């Protein structure tokens, strides 16, 4: 066998061996950083705009949406709800004029995995002017807006923390 072939095979073998090591290390790396928080809601909507449009507006809300988008959607109108503490940290929900319910019940918009939350804990909805309101639904441990326990439906300032059990959410632009 020619000298050249053997040299090429020798170096080739070392290269392949090291390639295996590198691939294995890559597998470990993907193992370490294996969990990603994805905003599934928004992505799905982008992917299927038609379906989203079809489902977007049940009759009752049709009247609200122009108001929300037209009237008060100024500079300070929040566009998304962000969970900033708790097991769901990083979850965002786009605000499009729909009511968001929070609680441990499965049909809640945000299902809280939190022992200190009630089944139907609170809801967040826009009023006629498009101002977002948070209302406690008679929960056991109460809902706090900026350390104050809610007793009546209250408008939410931008960025104010709403605490439910161990979960904190806020509205952002």
């Amino acid at each position, binding site marked *: *066998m020619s000298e050249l072939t*053997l*040299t090429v*095979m*020798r170096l080739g*073998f*070392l290269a*392949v*061996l*090291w390639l*295996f*090591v590198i*691939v*294995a*290390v890559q*597998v*470990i790396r993907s*193992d370490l950083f*294996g*969990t*990603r928080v*994805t905003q*599934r*809601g*928004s992505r*799905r*909507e982008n992917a299927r705009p038609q379906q989203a449009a079809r*489902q*977007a*507006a*049940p*009759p*009752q*809300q049709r009247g609200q949406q122009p108001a929300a988008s037209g009237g008060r959607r100024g500079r300070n109108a929040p566009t998304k709800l962000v969970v900033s503490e708790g*097991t*769901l940290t990083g*979850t*965002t*929900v*786009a605000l*499009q004029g*729909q*009511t*968001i*319910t929070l609680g*441990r*019940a*499965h*049909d809640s*918009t945000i*299902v809280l*995995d939190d*022992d200190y*939350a*009630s*089944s139907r804990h609170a809801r967040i*909805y826009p009023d006629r002017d498009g101002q977002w309101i948070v209302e406690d639904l008679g*929960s*056991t*441990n109460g809902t706090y807006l900026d350390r104050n326990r809610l007793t009546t439906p209250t408008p939410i300032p931008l960025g104010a923390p709403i605490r439910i059990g161990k979960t904190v959410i806020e509205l952002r632009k």
Partner: protein
Amino acid sequence: MSSTTNTSTQHTSTIGAIGAPSRRNTELALLVFAVVIPVFAYANVGLAINDQVPTGLLGYGLGLGLLAGIGHIVVRKFAAYADPLLLPLATLLNGLGLVFIWRLDQSERLQNLAESAYGVFTPSAPKQLLFSALGLALFVAVVVFLKDHRILQRYTYISMAVALVLLVLPLVPGLGDDTFGAKIWIRIPGVGTIQPGEFAKIILAIFFSGYLMVKRDALALASRRFMGLYLPRGRDLGPIITIWAVSLLILIFENDLGTSLLFFGMFVIMLYVATERTSWIVIGLLMSAAGAVGVASFAGHVQARVNAWLDPWSCYENSDACYQIGQSIMSFGSGGVLGTGLGQGNSDLIGFAANSDFIFSTVGEELGLAGVMGILLLYGLIIERGVRTALAARDPFGKLFAVGLSGAFALQIFVVVGGVMGLIPLTGMTMPFFAAGGSSVIANWALIGLLLRISDTARRPAPAPAPNPDAEMTQVVRP
């Protein structure tokens, strides 16, 4: 406002635990890679030695592929969430080991040596392939029949007894086989020789983890502080003294430096992990140093090894031990950085045990520093996955067991590689998966099987919580 659910579900990220991927497909891809590399090496050796692609190439490739495939299917079925790297790494090392053994079988020097010593030369590679198949069978048996590693915890003291019996067996007259200076084999008529120490390694790890899991608090907390070290009470020191004495006895009666170092080291590692006390490491190192010095000054066999380690060139001409070490060091040296190429080295000059204890010298000569580092990294990755499994395991027994197994694996590699490179005195141990030796291959496949089982338990996502949270009571915050 109840009509909002329709809209809202669309934007919801109902987040539970993100489903942990089982990563079986990654494993399969790596396995294919791990089978292709040894086949390439095999062809390379054949071309270099005989100027032709070896005739057994297809059979070898299919055989290795079949073994890997069976292993993969069994893991996919019975341990779906197990670590994706352990099986490919072990397959690659085993496959490369087979190639190197076959390469040394082709050496005329070794053939002549065997003919002059035993009258007949029998190639080791076919035997090793058979042992690999047996090892894989044991691996499959472990993965299939051991549903949960915690079952082993019930056999803590039984495994201690079994391990001691296994260690003593080579000393039993008529059963022991004292061929190569160390009494670590037993001869079973009709089957061949078995090295019970390899299996005792795994069984002792069961005992150590079961024992330490129960005693760790006593060992960690009931201690006196002395010169910055936490010294344990005498009665807690008992077990470590016992293990030390047993390992010394092995050393004295069986002339087996490696095994005794392995057991004692494994115990100290597990003790340290269980108690988090640095003092155990200091005590362990002192005790093993004392034991080694004591034995080295009495036992002739060990003394020769130490002399060969200190200065192989002074006794190069008249001592086999020195000659082998010298040749091994020269192998590494002549390999250089990139090696001479597979099948083109002269590591067969080592002579006796070239394909078992000294197989790593062939790697050093023919693959060079780059190859040695690659192979050592493969071993390092196995150990890393073992320790990672221990970190991920949720039960203390599984944690200690995984640490013990990977620690023993690491120590064994250190002892062998350090020995052939002249870093520490040579001890007759086998390179896991690489060296010719049935017991070693079989036992190490079982070890990989156990690690896979523990990692499957550790990485498997927790079962779904109670389905109806509505029924659960909300906890009340008490100020």
